[in-house]
């Protein structure tokens, strides 16, 4: 199977090479057969990559310990689903998996648009083949997952050999989230390749109008949604496994996944300016280019350990390949931009500072500044070493100082932006839209202060969260009222009907609700408490309203590890609430240990209990207890974001009433311009 897999991978390389070179020739000659054959080569490359990936999974499942990658990441006793997951537990497999996910996107795009957009698709196919070729080069020639184990025999010649068992999978990866977190994150990373390819193709081909934006909207949103889920699952994994009581530590790898999310979010918003007003064209194209490059950079940071904040244990040789690829990508983007700059000329200008355009502009500014701050903080060790010779890292205070105010500003814009009119908003409309939400926000702030909040940022966060939630509620109320009057539905059905009529706008609002919930959860951190204590059997630890009693310690032998457990009874107001079992797992195969945190989670707060270890001097076990308010809001917020994105992806049920009216009006007046219908009548629409 290893021969089959590596051959498939090599053949995929050849196909992708043909798709790239043939694609360039096809663009130059416009020969229909050449265009068709390069497209089919691109599809063949994808299928071959699928086969290669499946053969790696097959090698894992069949315990093929003659393969170096399998030996390093699996062992016989490992549960079968972890053997499948082990595909992406190391560098070689991860990069192949990246390529696999990219191929799913490429295959879908090539199939979906095979008979459409004849002017654009050869460019798109060629660019996609170029990206694929890079990853195939890495997987074939730099870090192949099919490498065989070999030892020198008595005469010094190398011989293949098979190990009786593997070294096992890293214990911190033996956790359910690890099954779904990397695929999500990687689907996000790879997914941004599609809008990138379309944007670059449209620029190179001078493809008319905003078509590439319409074509890629759904792809971008799918990628963005995967990225969001991937980041949150990673945070949840860190929370549940690493045992330090938090879910976000501004680690380089976390930052790497967050950077393309920031620019991707900026892009999703600023394209609306281009669609509605023909503005920001240069900006949008570059946002998409940068998002893609940040995805590649993210993969590089994750895989190469270039700026590993903790240490440089995992060094690798792929760094220079990635830097080279980034340089080539940047060069191609610059070339396309300077060649066809005039194609990106803006059709309109900003009219007023209190307008939808302006709110998008500031939204983009905030996201970009956050991105630059995080990027520079992450790469600081690298740059400081270049310039001063000293390797200097910056930590959490740096990231929080900048990003907390920026996040709050963004939250404010989330509430304000959607309710401002395009071009210019009147004072009257401001009052009509924002009076009640502002009152709600102030009430929210007063309530949290009354509940004992003293942290400035937390109070502001609650104020803004209530404000934004209220703006969305008011929007829903107004829309639903109109439908209710016209169709005699109840409030709930009217709200559903409203959402289905304009999925894009109301899906967007639902996403915003999810983001607000995440912010509420983040603000909860201001009230975190923790207690660490050496505790004997029968001993207690107190935190907030809870009292924890260590009843016993025991050991549990599992197939792949031995678990040492604390049996902790949790009491609230002297009444038993539940029993928690924080664990430490020892994995004999690789002599590593892992923590299994016990969490009692409610919407109000998480009681987070860690068996922190045994004092090596006194042999007394240590318990580490955290009381983290509102953490669950972050995870639930994530679910709401996904639901909102799905809604926004659904095709609206009916034509929007206001819109059809607007079109008639403009046609009657003979005012049709290059803009899609009058913007003023579309006030309030996304």
């Amino acid at each position, binding site marked *: 199977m290893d021969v089959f897999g590596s051959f498939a991978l090599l053949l995929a390389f050849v196909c992708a090479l043909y798709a790239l070179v043939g694609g360039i020739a096809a663009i130059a000659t416009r020969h229909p057969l050449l265009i068709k054959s390069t497209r089919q080569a691109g599809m063949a490359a994808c299928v071959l990559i699928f086969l290669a990936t499946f053969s790696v999974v097959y090698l894992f499942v069949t315990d093929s310990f003659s393969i170096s990658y399998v030996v*390093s990441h699996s062992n016989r006793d490992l549960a079968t689903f972890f053997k499948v997951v082990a595909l992406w*537990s*190391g*560098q070689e497999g991860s990069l192949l998996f990246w390529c696999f996910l990219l191929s799913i996107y490429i295959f879908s795009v090539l199939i979906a648009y095979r008979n459409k957009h004849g002017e654009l698709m050869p460019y798109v196919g060629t660019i996609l083949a170029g990206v694929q070729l890079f990853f195939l080069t890495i997987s074939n020639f730099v870090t192949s997952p099919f490498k065989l184990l070999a030892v020198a025999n008595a005469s010094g010649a190398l011989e293949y050999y098979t190990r009786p068992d593997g*070294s*096992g*999978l*890293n214990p*911190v*990866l033996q956790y359910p989230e690890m099954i779904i*977190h990397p695929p999500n994150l990687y689907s996000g990373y790879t997914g941004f390749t599609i809008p990138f390819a379309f944007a670059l193709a449209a620029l190179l081909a001078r493809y008319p109008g905003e078509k590439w934006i319409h074509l890629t909207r759904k792809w971008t949103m799918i990628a963005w949604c995967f990225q969001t889920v991937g980041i949150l699952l*990673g945070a949840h994994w860190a929370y549940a496994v690493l045992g330090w009581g*938090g879910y976000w*530590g501004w*680690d380089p*790898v976390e930052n790497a996944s967050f950077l393309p999310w920031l620019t991707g979010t900026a892009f999703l918003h600023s394209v609306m300016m281009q669609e509605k007003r023909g503005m920001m064209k240069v900006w949008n194209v570059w946002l998409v280019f940068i998002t893609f490059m940040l995805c590649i950079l993210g993969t590089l940071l*994750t*895989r190469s*350990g270039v700026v*590993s*904040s*903790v*240490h*440089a*244990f*995992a060094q690798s040789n792929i760094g220079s390949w990635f830097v080279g690829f980034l340089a080539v990508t940047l060069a191609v983007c610059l070339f396309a931009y300077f060649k066809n700059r005039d194609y990106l000329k803006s059709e309109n200008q*900003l009219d*007023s*500072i209190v307008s939808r355009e302006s709110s998008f*502009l*500031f939204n983009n*500014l905030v996201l970009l*500044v956050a991105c630059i*701050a995080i990027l520079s903080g992450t790469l600081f*060790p690298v740059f400081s070493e270049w310039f001063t010779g*000293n*390797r*200097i*890292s*910056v*930590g959490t*205070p*740096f990231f929080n*100082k*900048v990003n907390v*105010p920026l996040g709050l*500003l963004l939250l404010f814009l989330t509430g304000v932006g959607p309710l401002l009119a395009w071009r210019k908003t009147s004072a009257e409309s401001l009052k009509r839209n924002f009076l009640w939400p502002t009152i709600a926000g102030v009430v929210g702030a007063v309530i949290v202060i009354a509940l004992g909040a003293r942290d400035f940022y937390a109070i502001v966060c609650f104020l803004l969260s209530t404000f934004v939630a209220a703006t969305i509620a008011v929007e829903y109320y107004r829309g639903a009222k109109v439908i209710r009057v016209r169709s005699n539905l109840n409030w709930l059905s009217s709200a559903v009907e409203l959402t289905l009529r304009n999925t894009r706008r109301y899906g967007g609002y639902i996403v915003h609700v999810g983001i607000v919930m995440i912010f509420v959860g983040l603000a909860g951190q201001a009230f975190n408490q923790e207690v*660490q204590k050496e505790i004997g059997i029968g001993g207690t630890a107190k935190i907030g309203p809870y009292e924890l009693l260590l009843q016993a310690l025991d050991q549990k032998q599992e197939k792949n590890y031995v678990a040492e457990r604390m049996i902790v009874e949790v009491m609230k107001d002297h009444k038993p609430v539940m029993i928690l079992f924080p664990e430490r797992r*020892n994995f004999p195969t*690789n*002599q*590593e*240990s*892992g923590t299994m945190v016990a969490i009692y989670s409610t919407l109000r707060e998480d009681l987070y209990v860690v068996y*922190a*270890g045994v*004092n*090596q*001097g006194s042999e007394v076990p240590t318990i*580490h207890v955290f009381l983290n308010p509102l953490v669950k809001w972050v995870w639930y917020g994530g679910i709401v974001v996904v639901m909102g994105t799905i809604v926004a992806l659904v095709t609206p049920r009916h034509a929007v009433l206001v819109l059809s009216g607007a079109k008639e009006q403009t046609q009657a007046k003979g005012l049709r311009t290059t803009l899609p219908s009058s913007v003023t009548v579309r006030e309030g629409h996304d």
Partner: protein
Amino acid sequence: MKKQVKFGIGIGVIVVSMACLAWLGYGESKTYYHTIAELETLHGSAAAHRMRVGGTVEPGSIHHVSGRTDFVLLGEGKSLSVSYTGNDPLPDSFIDNSQALIEGRMGSDGRFQAEHVQAKCASKYEAAPGEAPKSSAPTGRS
């Protein structure tokens, strides 16, 4: 006022205030990476910085004293005496000959006062996608 000027002021205020905050955060949290050999060559303010040092734990050097743990870190033929006074229990992987990464400041007595210790056995596997640095950092939030 012209609208361009208004936008300019808005953008300027955001960028400048963020730059100030970034500078404050930088001053508060910058940590220097040094090797054990480099530590001897540091003088004055450079020796007082917050630092991160990596090395191998000398076999037999780990001593648990009340309230702290002393050990010796080896690297590039040099050695460094370390006192760990942090609250978190030391990781299980912190044993003789393990690779350790310590974070803290140089004490006036020439002992390194470590606030965080991370350790990793010379291991057979490598880190995972997405989580590479943390996988071997069970004690620290880095």
